[in-house]
């Protein structure tokens, strides 16, 4: 049973459990509250708040989610109390001298993080605002000032916007929380970049994914589990099209939850994985829900909820519920609700999930054939204004007008209105990229279009305040150049949006090429590693230093020949809404 109390003006949840003592503070703020032009500010504050704790003996951490930021620790109650006291003190008095270093650390963290194959899903659903911001890099870091941070802390890191939680019958005695007063912040609005659902977009290779909104309920939770079991059965056990399937049920607010399902796909079987995935969604809507699946899900839920530590494990979720004004249920109630779910209710959720769904397809494939509508990849309108034809390519043009910017190409236009700009990225070389609320992008590249400095400068003042982002210098290779007048082929970089030419199918080809090269590079790398080790450790190979160097250059050079193009191709494809 979870007990609710108040400590230092902060709502507090207590739940005893046999596991190690745990405690934390959760704030109602996350990436979905940020704007794209200041994306990363919450994560930066989390890092700054933890800096003084340095290297300590106890286990602690912080996480920045879409709508909540947790600071938590495990250890003795005194250590937990000390940790949380320190975090709250740090939020009052952040180590400003660390600002630039922490920004750099965050950039390194994001560069080293492997890209999720479903990273762009949220962008396609929500656009470049609210819940969609998580799809983008933390572009705001360079622009965020001390004042921005102070204002963000004052708004979100307050007593009224926090919940404390502890596993145990009481809070640590040494807790001294001195947070400023504020107000409970409402959740960010749920934006949409999809004019019509169910929708599809073509995503990363070898992955099929599905995202939807369903009414928040025990039936929706059970549906998510049934979906996972059916996907595992159809995609892995029966067909061998996939190795891994996973689902996630994630409450958004008091009324709504997000359901996510992801399956990887055997490279030769990507179309079958997509087909089987679509058939599973149909089976849950129209077929028979297996009673044995329902029974297994109930048994599993009962096991997990009867675990004496279950209430304590549910504390972070309970903290989220308190912050959004949702009731905190105890394990018994949760289990009771899950056990009461019927097959008909699961089927009803399946219908709702399909209707609101967004499907991510692999390998350049579409899903119109199964009743899904293509998510928009072009804009419906073009702004009125001055037209700049692309140097050496009459098929492409840029239009800059008083209300916004459009790029025009054979595949259709992309338009970003100034009033609906989520971010304007600016590189020192003069290149600019506008990203609209709907996720559309327009590149204004002086190398490609004869735009004068005065017009460029006017762009920067036309967009809403807080949306411009000055990025560090680009690799000269990535600055697009106009096509050679003698040649007929157009370089991919000449596309208005920096995307490879030829639409999704061409992207699919690049994915395949990049993957094949990557896999070969992997094998080549392993071989080179083994050979290099042998070269230095095997006494039988008594080569002089010059021969050794030559052999190493040969092996690793070969690896690089494969790895570099693979990496460059993959980087081309990294992101964002593909445009024509």
């Amino acid at each position, binding site marked *: 049973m979870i007990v609710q109390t108040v400590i230092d003006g902060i709502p507090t949840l207590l739940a005893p459990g046999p596991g190690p003592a745990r405690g934390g503070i959760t704030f109602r703020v996350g990436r979905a509250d940020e704007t794209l032009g200041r994306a990363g500010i919450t994560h930066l504050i989390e890092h700054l708040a933890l800096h003084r704790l340095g290297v300590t003996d106890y286990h602690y951490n912080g996480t920045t989610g879409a709508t909540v930021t947790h600071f938590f620790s495990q250890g003795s109650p005194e250590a937990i109390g000390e940790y949380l006291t320190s975090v709250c003190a740090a939020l009052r008095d952040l180590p400003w001298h660390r600002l630039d270093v922490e920004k750099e650390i965050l950039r390194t963290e994001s560069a080293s993080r492997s890209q999720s194959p479903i990273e762009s899903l949220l962008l396609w659903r929500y656009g470049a605002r609210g819940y969609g911001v998580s799809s983008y890099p933390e572009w705001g870091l360079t622009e965020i000032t001390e004042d921005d941070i102070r204002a963000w802390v004052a708004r979100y890191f307050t007593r009224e916007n926090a919940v404390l939680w502890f596993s145990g019958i009481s809070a640590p005695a040494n807790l001294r929380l001195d947070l400023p007063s504020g107000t409970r912040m409402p959740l960010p609005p749920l934006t949409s970049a999809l004019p019509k659902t169910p929708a599809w977009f073509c995503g990363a290779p070898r992955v099929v994914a599905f995202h939807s909104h369903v009414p928040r309920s025990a039936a929706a939770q059970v549906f998510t589990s049934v979906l996972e079991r059916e996907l595992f059965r159809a995609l892995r056990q029966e067909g061998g*099209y996939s190795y891994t399937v996973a689902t996630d049920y994630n409450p958004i607010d008091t009324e709504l939850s997000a359901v996510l399902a992801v399956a990887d796909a055997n490279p030769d079987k990507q*179309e079958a994985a997509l087909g*089987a995935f679509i*058939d599973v969604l149909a*089976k849950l809507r129209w*077929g028979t829900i297996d009673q044995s699946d329902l029974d297994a899900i109930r048994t599993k839920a009962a096991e997990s909820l009867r675990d004496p530590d279950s209430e304590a494990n549910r504390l972070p979720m309970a903290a989220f519920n308190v912050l959004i004004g949702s009731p905190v249920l105890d394990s018994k109630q949760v289990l009771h609700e899950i056990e009461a779910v019927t097959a008909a209710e699961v089927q009803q959720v399946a219908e709702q999930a399909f209707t609101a769904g967004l499907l991510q397809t692999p*390998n350049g494939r579409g899903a119109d054939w199964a009743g899904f509508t293509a998510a928009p990849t072009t804009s419906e309108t073009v702004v009125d204004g001055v037209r700049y034809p692309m140097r050496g390519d009459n098929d492409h043009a840029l239009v800059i007008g008083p209300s916004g910017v459009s790029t025009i190409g054979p595949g259709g236009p992309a338009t970003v209105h100034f009033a609906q700009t989520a971010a304007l990225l600016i590189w020192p070389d003069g290149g600019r990229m506008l990203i609209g609320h709907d996720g559309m992008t327009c590149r204004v590249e002086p190398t490609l279009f004869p735009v004068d400095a005065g017009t460029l400068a006017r762009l920067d003042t036309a967009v809403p305040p807080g949306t411009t982002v000055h990025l560090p210098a680009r690799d000269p290779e990535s600055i697009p150049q106009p096509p050679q007048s003698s040649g007929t082929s157009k370089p991919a970089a000449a596309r208005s949006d920096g995307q490879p030419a030829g639409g999704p199918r061409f992207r699919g080809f690049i994915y395949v090429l990049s993957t094949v090269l990557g896999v070969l590079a992997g094998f080549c790398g392993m071989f080179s590693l083994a050979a290099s080790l042998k070269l230095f450790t095997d006494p039988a190979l008594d080569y002089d230093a010059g021969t050794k160097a030559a052999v190493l250059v040969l092996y690793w050079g070969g690896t690089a020949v494969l790895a570099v193009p693979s990496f460059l191709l993959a980087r081309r494809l990294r992101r964002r809404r593909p445009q024509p």
Partner: protein
Amino acid sequence: MADDFTPDFRLRAAYPEVAAAEDAIRAGDWPAFRACYDAVPKWQGRQLIMGAANEVAGSETFLKSVIERDPEDLVATTMYANRLINIGWEIRTDKRAKYVSAEQFAAFHKYLREAEQILIWVCARDPSFVPAWTNRLATSRGLELGQAETRRRYDHVARHDPHNMSAQNSLLQELCPKWHGSLEAMHAFASERAAAAPPGAHNAVLIVDAHVEHWASLPNTESETYFDRPNVRQEIMAAAERSVLHPDFDRGMGWVYPMSMFALGFCLISEWTLAKRCFLELGPYADDWGWQYLKGGAEAAFIRCRAWAMERG
């Protein structure tokens, strides 16, 4: 004798069950149709019965009225989807893709998408309903959903009916080079399914089908000598031994197609005696599949080859 011979390519001619089914559809009598359907035990025969709707112009309107009365009738629903596929394919025509206009493709895909979404529903309602999966092989091919996806659909058919001739014919088409397949994959599939079928079954005809497709895909200079290749002759002969020439050859529903196809195969390898035997077994019945690749179209080619076989065999 040969000059006044005309083959009857209609299924109703060879199979009275199909004739009765077709008459029932023409009369708008669904219970009578269902009685014909229910009387046939095997999926292969049932699929032939369901195909009778394609012989009745406008049968889709009748099928739609049946579905309106009983939305859960999977047989009527699948037949309706099959009609949409056929209407779509008639618009597309059997020509090579480069001779099909953009408008034709758009209409073709529209009909196939509608059929596919109906069939997704049928397969969700009853994943063991073989005719729906068989039709989904055609939608997958027409909508170009990919070889792996078509194969998955075939595997669903095979799980419940491992020797389903229609589904195997459909997958063989998918595996043809003209549908982005390969000669190797096509021949491999034909051999594998021929070997897996019991002796006397129809399925070894896939070997002839694959060779005819291979031959039809070649430029004239190569196609002229294709059937002189020893391995081609050998494979067709061995396949015949397993099916039409086998003492246990299955004379049940569907028998005309392998007999007609082997008649063609024997003509192509100049085995006139065996060809004559097949023509005599066929009597007036025939299947136009395969013959359409020959000069003059299926009927003229069939009459011409039959006359030669009667003379030389």
